[in-house]
């Protein structure tokens, strides 16, 4: 049993670390995009500048209380989710929820965003949400197959134990080495869950005027920016915990997380956008097939 004071400090520190690392991940994403497009890219503190700028804008348009609450839920859901995601030296309440709970908590921000966008009374936003939910239906199916495989192989849904099992025998017991097929399927599903090209069907600036973001200004957009930081962090750390043995030290933990994220981000800027039904078809064919093969190996 942990001392309560220690636990409270962990619960405060974990989201804070996630936020800072998440901002650096946004920076990395932008730098990679710049490299690919032969630009210099933004300075180191640009994500922070952006968040401060957006929050301090003079024009802040609200479409009603649910619009506000949606943004609060989008940020708050991720802040809560971070406490279920173990990092080196800190486990928070990971043992009281487990991987399934984490997966469902990660849907709360999307639900909040969906509610907030809905109240904006803009069809572009609503179409964006309809597409985002469809995308979720597409990538969550391979994702849960992957999570089933990992949890079944480890014999537990407790993330702390899943990481411990992988660290027990060094590199050979990593999820990615033990279950390479599942790791590939997971990577594809993870890429789609980030909503980056070619899977950015719900942003689609040329079609639906950036979808959910169409009525977001000032701190509303700032809130979504914060949410994106958390999203990048959560997705990559989850992948590292499931397949790359988590982190023993902060150095290798962060190294793995950034490297994992660099893969989909590098791919993203080379592609245009799929249509919604093509995304569904792609997700339900390849990663699902790989995932099921992977699970068959595990069983």
């Amino acid at each position: 049993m942990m001392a309560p004071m220690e636990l409270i400090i962990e619960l405060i520190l974990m989201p804070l670390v996630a936020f800072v690392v998440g901002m650096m991940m946004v920076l990395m994403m932008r730098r990679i995009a710049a490299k690919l497009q032969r630009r210099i890219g933004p300075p180191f503190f640009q994500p922070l500048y952006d968040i401060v700028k957006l929050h301090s804008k003079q024009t802040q348009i609200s479409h009603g209380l649910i619009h506000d609450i949606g943004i609060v839920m989008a940020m708050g859901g991720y802040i809560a989710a971070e406490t279920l995601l173990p990092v080196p030296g800190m486990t928070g309440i990971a043992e009281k929820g487990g991987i399934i709970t984490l997966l469902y908590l990660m849907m709360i921000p999307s639900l909040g965003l969906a509610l907030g966008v809905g109240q904006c009374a803009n069809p572009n936003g609503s179409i964006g949400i309809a597409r985002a939910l469809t995308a979720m239906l597409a990538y969550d199916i391979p994702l849960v197959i992957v999570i089933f495989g990992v949890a079944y192989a480890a014999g537990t849904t407790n993330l702390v134990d899943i990481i411990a099992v992988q660290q027990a025998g060094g590199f050979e017991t990593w999820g990615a080495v033990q279950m390479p097929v599942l790791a590939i399927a997971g990577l594809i599903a993870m890429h789609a869950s980030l909503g980056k090209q070619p899977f950015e069907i719900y942003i689609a600036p040329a079609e639906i005027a950036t979808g959910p973001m169409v009525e977001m200004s000032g701190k509303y957009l700032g809130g979504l920016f914060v949410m994106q930081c958390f999203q990048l962090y959560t997705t990559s750390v989850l992948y590292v915990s499931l397949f790359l043995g988590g982190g023993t030290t902060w150095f290798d933990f962060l190294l793995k997380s950034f490297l994992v994220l660099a893969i989909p981000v590098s791919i993203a800027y080379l592609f245009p956008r799929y249509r919604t039904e093509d995304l569904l078809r792609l997700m339900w064919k390849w990663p699902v097939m790989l995932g099921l093969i992977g699970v068959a190996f595990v069983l």
Partner: protein
Amino acid sequence: MTLTPLDELLLFSGVTVLVAMLLGRRLPAGWMVTILYGIQLLALMKMAPLGYGGEAISSALTFKVMGQTLSWRFDALSWYFALITLGSALLSSWYACGEWEQRFRQSGGNLWLFHFAMTLNVFSMLILLASGDLLSLFIGWELVSWAGFLLMAMAGGVATKAAMRYITYAMAGAMAIFGGIALVYVSAGSLQYEAILTAASQMSTAHLWMLVILFGAGFGIKMGLMPFHLWQAPAYAETPGPGSAFLGAISSRMGLFAILLVLVKLFGIVNIDSLKIPFTLIDARDLLAWIAVFTIIFPTFTAMKQNDARQLLAWHGIGQGGYMLLGLVVADAMGAAGGLLHVFNHATYQAALFMAVTAVIHRTGTADLNKLGGLVVRMPLTFMVLLVGIIGLAGLPPMNGFVSKWLVYRSLLNEGMPLLFVAAVIGTLGTILSVYKLIHNIFLGQLRVEHDKVKEAPWSMMIPMLILAAIIFITGLLPGIPLAWVASVQQAVGLPVPDYTLGGVESASGSLDMIWVIGVLFAGFGIGALIFYFAGGRSKRVHQLDNYAGGHFLTADVRYQYSDNFYAGLMHLIGGWYRGSFLWLEQSVKSLVEFLSLGMQGLYRRANAEFYLLSTALFVIAWVVI
């Protein structure tokens, strides 16, 4: 003869029926009936030890009919289902009192019939739940079927048609059950539970197969299991508002109760497990599990395509029944607990959702999802109730639906059933899509001009809804409260019991503590709110027409709402998969029956004596020779 607590409960319930029948035409009838439901609930509370592992309580009343003893008794299983029945009856009836009642009467509804049908439903359900042998079970089953028909048919028109369809299915199911009971009587020589329990272990495989099919189909029809699900959605959706809240909450769970009693408790899930299907790798239990999973997926995706809010909810009601059966069929400690807990959870949020939608109909006159929108600014409390309800229905934290689904998922994971697990998750994802469409098209988006003066639902309707919303949240925060009842049900039917705590479940392979999860979630919301409200600039509220429209100006007559064909992209891919195969199947059975009856009719209308004589003679000769 001394009255046991069970007799008191049934007596109060009977009195309620009488009161509704005799005094139902007077205006305060609704309140009287509601108070009487409250008294019934108190009588049930006198038997509360049952919910915590107490001894079964028998009724003092027994009959002897043709050598068969008819008896009634309550155990943990009956008590748990009775609690849900009476709770939903009390709140639905309360909801109906006051403004809804007046409007219903003004629009030509028969209030007397409504109260009478409701009380009769509750009474017959209690009789069914109290059955102490297969014969009394069958009597209760028939009573429930016909009482349900009365409530479903009363609105007339489309409702009567849907109810006729229901009663056709129900009668077919009753035949199957009756056949099963006859078969049991032949092999066990008695209809008493104890005798069947001992006989079940010695039954031959073929015999047990027959019984599983007959009882499974008979009870499955009431639950709306595939492929017998077609009747349910239209029948529930067309019932007058509070009636559909009550039916949606508990009515089809009577099928689950009977499955639990007969297939799980009497025949034993282990016996069923030994029934292999020849030439395949699956057994009867896998078959049931797959039926459950298809019952989750198909109705859920049908719900997504509905344009009427009540139809949408009713279709989801069928789908959620699949989770309950799935958990029970897996039958380990967590799965069975999840399935049983879902009965309670489903009743709470389904009733709340039907009530919220009925409140919207009460104020706007429509449940058409293409004719609403933006009502959150006019009916914020109803919005909140609907939001709590859909989070429960979709099974997301922090509401109670999450806990029961989590338990079902965990059991599938523990038992290593990846395909069932994925299928269950697909159902949940489909539900999320569908319920977002529901809340978006009613409450979000653009407020229509004609709804500008709409008011919040009246308090007589609001209070029961808020109570339900509170129950949904509290049992999500403290699932240990219903899990205690569920654990004693599991003991009563001979299933393993999970290691539960107030906040969830303890397990070596991953625990759940909702108190912490929800605590952290709300702390997260708090921090989010601090950042949003204090770290940012002041926001300005604008009119809904002050909106991006690609360079155009919006005016009040411009409809600026996305509602129809909500998941267009998804439907591009899966739209072609909706083939209406089950409707086709139903139609072909109907045509076959019509064809046969036409043939039969032709035969006797002819009144051709020679032909009858000839055919009879031929038949007799054939029989003698062979």
